[in-house]
């Protein structure tokens, strides 16, 4: 489908300023998110597997409140679940961000209709769709079995507070974005065909 050898001299590509800005912002946020993720994971790993975190910590599990004065008092299964849940969420965010960064790099280089660009777009669409359906399945399973929230950790002095909400029915935005990326990849494929035809027009 794509001719690999064209030997046609390409004009020097000039990247629009907006694309350059988006590329640098994407790069910055990817590395910033990666560093923060590593710090968060290390912190959670530390307190989940032996470290100490003082302060009143409240868990709402299956509708029952559990209050602890130190994270060390939390049962091991909950600590492990918290670590794995955070690891899963952060790694899925980082992977999607990584593919978007790769896509932006190719756009920055002017390779709009390259096969790699199209593959990156498709991968982002697949990953977002997977995240959406996994959240739906978890939401349905836990709503049916345990009620709407199975995991709600709140550090009452304001730090390290986050909630894992098992229901996902109110987040169709992820699927819409996934579909947009999928459609974009098909539009780019048509663009690649036009580009190939143009390059082979003497």
């Amino acid at each position, binding site marked *: 489908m794509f001719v690999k050898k064209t*030997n*046609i001299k390409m004009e020097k590509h000039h990247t629009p300023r907006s694309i350059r800005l988006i590329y640098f912002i994407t790069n910055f946020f990817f590395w910033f998110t990666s560093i923060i993720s590593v710090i968060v994971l290390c912190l959670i790993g530390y307190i989940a597997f032996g470290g100490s975190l003082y302060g009143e910590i409240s868990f709402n599990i299956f509708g029952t409140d559990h209050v602890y004065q130190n994270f060390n008092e939390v049962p091991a299964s909950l600590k492990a679940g918290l670590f794995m849940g955070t690891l899963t969420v952060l790694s899925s965010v980082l992977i999607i961000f990584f593919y978007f960064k790769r896509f932006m790099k190719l756009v920055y280089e002017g390779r709009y209709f390259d096969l790699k660009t199209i593959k990156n777009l498709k991968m982002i669409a697949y990953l977002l769709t997977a995240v959406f359906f996994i959240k739906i399945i978890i939401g349905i399973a836990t709503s049916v079995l345990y009620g709407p929230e199975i995991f709600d950790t709140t550090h009452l002095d304001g730090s390290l507070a986050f909630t894992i909400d098992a229901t996902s029915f109110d987040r169709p935005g992820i699927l819409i974005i996934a579909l947009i990326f999928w459609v974009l990849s098909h539009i780019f494929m048509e663009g690649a065909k036009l580009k190939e035809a143009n390059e*082979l*027009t*003497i």
Partner: protein
Amino acid sequence: MSIVINLDVMLAKRKMSLTELSEKVGVTIANLSILKKGKAKAVRFSTLEAICEALDCQPGDILEYSNSVTND
């Protein structure tokens, strides 16, 4: 494709090399090579005009339709 490119035949008749034709027509050797091998998807009229002028021939001397030949 059923369009046969007879560029090498005309080059031989006019005793001209691809490099010389490239300089006269203003098309790169690489692109002329793509045309000669039959890999081109399209030819602009301006390019065809320049080639015919350089080789002193008709478009039909360079382009030939043959429904028995498939280059793909």
